């Protein structure tokens, strides 16, 4: 589904990713772990199409080179990034935002846009699964939401938009144990044979709930080690310094 070949990125002559290779197939869950500053969030941003980086190398999504594809087109094609720090957007009503986003993506996929009633029924069902109180949906987007509520809102968007390739950027940070379980359940119940996940995290604890097929260690802009789910447990004991 996603093939990254020799990806190099820099900002203001500072190299961040330095020849990263990664191959993710449909149905797989990959985790990327690594110390602070190793380039994990940069990788997430690059995949979403964020501007401001010098990028070389190849990113192919379902056989298409993503380098020339804009941010919104990537989303429309099925790439989703759950933000580490979801933005607060005053004045934008959460429900309106969700409906606009969903209908834009449905339209791009050639599906019929949902009317208000069908949308509200859908969003009610999905938010109930995540334990999100309905009143949050009529509030301004992420404004005054707690860290956990913001992360749940990201997962709600993921469940609504049904993307094929999902990047979770430190989704576990700022979550208490209960919220972590709810978020993990939300992810696990979204796993299918036709989608794939890339989970970026510092800690093993999220991987206790979402069992990855592969764990990669990102260090100095490259993947330096790849293993199965036991690699995460090992790292938790030994730390990154021993690699």
């Amino acid at each position, binding site marked *: 589904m996603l093939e990254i070949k020799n990806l190099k990125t820099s900002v203001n002559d500072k190299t961040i990713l330095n020849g990263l290779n990664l191959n993710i197939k449909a149905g797989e869950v990959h985790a990327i772990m690594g110390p602070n500053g190793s380039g994990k969030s940069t990788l997430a941003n690059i995949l979403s199409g964020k501007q401001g980086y010098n990028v070389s190398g190849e990113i192919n999504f379902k056989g298409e080179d993503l380098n020339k594809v804009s941010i919104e087109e*990537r989303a429309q094609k099925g790439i989703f990034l759950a933000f580490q720090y979801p933005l607060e*957007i005053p004045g934008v009503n959460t429900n309106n935002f969700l409906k606009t986003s969903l209908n834009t*993506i449905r339209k791009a996929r050639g599906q019929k846009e949902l009317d208000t009633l069908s949308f509200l029924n859908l969003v009610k069902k999905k938010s109930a699964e995540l334990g999100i109180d309905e009143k949050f949906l009529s509030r301004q987007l992420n404004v005054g939401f707690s860290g956990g509520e913001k992360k749940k809102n990201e997962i709600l968007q993921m469940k609504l938009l049904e993307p094929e390739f999902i990047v979770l950027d430190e989704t576990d940070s700022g979550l208490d144990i209960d919220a972590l379980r709810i978020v993990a359940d939300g992810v696990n119940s979204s796993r299918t044979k036709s989608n794939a996940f890339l989970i970026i995290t510092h800690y093993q604890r999220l991987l206790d709930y979402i069992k990855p097929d592969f764990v990669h260690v990102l260090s100095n802009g490259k993947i330096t080690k790849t293993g199965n789910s036991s690699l995460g447990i090992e790292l938790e004991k030994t730390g990154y310094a021993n690699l």
Partner: protein
Amino acid sequence: MKQDFAIDINNISSEKMEYRKKNLELFNKEGFPNRRLETWKFTDLNKIIEENFENLEAHNKSEEYQEVELLKDFEHNYIILINGILKSNNFKHEDQKKFKINEYHENINNKIEIQNSLISLNNALFNGGYSLEVSSNYKFKKPLVVYNYFLNNLENKIVNNKNMIILNENSGLDLIESNSDISKKNFIYNNYTNIKLDENASLKSYNLQGCKSNGFFYKFLKVCLAKMSNYEDYIFSSGLKFNKVEEDVDVIGENAKCTIQSAISLSLNEHQEIKTQINHLKPNCVSYQKIKNVLNKNCKGAYQGKIFVKDVAQKTDAYQLSKALLLDDSSEFNAKPELEIYADDVKCSHGSTSGSVNEDSIYYLMTRGISRKKAIGLLTKAFLFEIADSIQNEEIKVFVEKNLDRQIYGY
């Protein structure tokens, strides 16, 4: 610009004619305001008129009544003004004994003299307008919509009119002024509105623009607030080629409250300015102004806000904020806040910001499939809707929001 206006009004007393002539002389001496005047430093009206008009003439015709389109799905009373002249009214939701509606007649003995050449010109040439008085203890059951229609050939014309609104004690009114320019001509509308709120009266007024207009609008509001009265004015006048609204508010009774808020979206070659002066003359009063502008493509906006606090006006709580969102580099926004305070126990503050749309917010919305253009639209709307959101009457809020939506996304 040299301009020869003639007073072409019949059937008025010699005193009134004298008064008009005197005012015309005053205007002739000053001419249209230019940027040398402090209150017009951001808006050189004289130059603007020179560039846009030739042989400007006063509009003196008495207009025929014409059928006009009324707002649908919104229960309301209404009055219809055509080219400034009161033509029709309907107050079907109200007790007919509790209000008076008439054509405006000037009482020249009670005239407040204000140094302003446009008001002098209006005094000299005004032709029509309405006067509304609401009886004590009567609160309007439904909003009153003032349809301000501009029709027919107004090319190179200046329409001058005056309105008067008096709310006696404990009365209340929600007033929506809806401007519709069907003429699509190059004309000037010069309005003077006098508002008096007696004890504990409440006026909430909403100014909407029904369609784009090539008109050049100037409105001066003189507002007088007695004890415990509440005045709220919302200015949503997007779509006018030129607009300047001046509000001069005297807070003459204790515990009165004055709120002026504005949400305006300016586009290609448009120019709008709001100027407020709140004169706190008695203690324990509250005033609040929040002015929001979105500017896109070679347009110009300005806000001049002055808060004056007299020495006796202790415990005044006055706050003023201007926020501008510039969508490109070709537009300009100027703000000039001013505080003049002679009392020592007051809370007065002002703030002004202007900036562009937050790129991180655009990025976030784009990662959800929304195009950059649509994301900017959403953020712009969010910026302006904050003002509409503060409207307490749900019915009016919904109505205003629909109107604002059209003003932002085009008519």
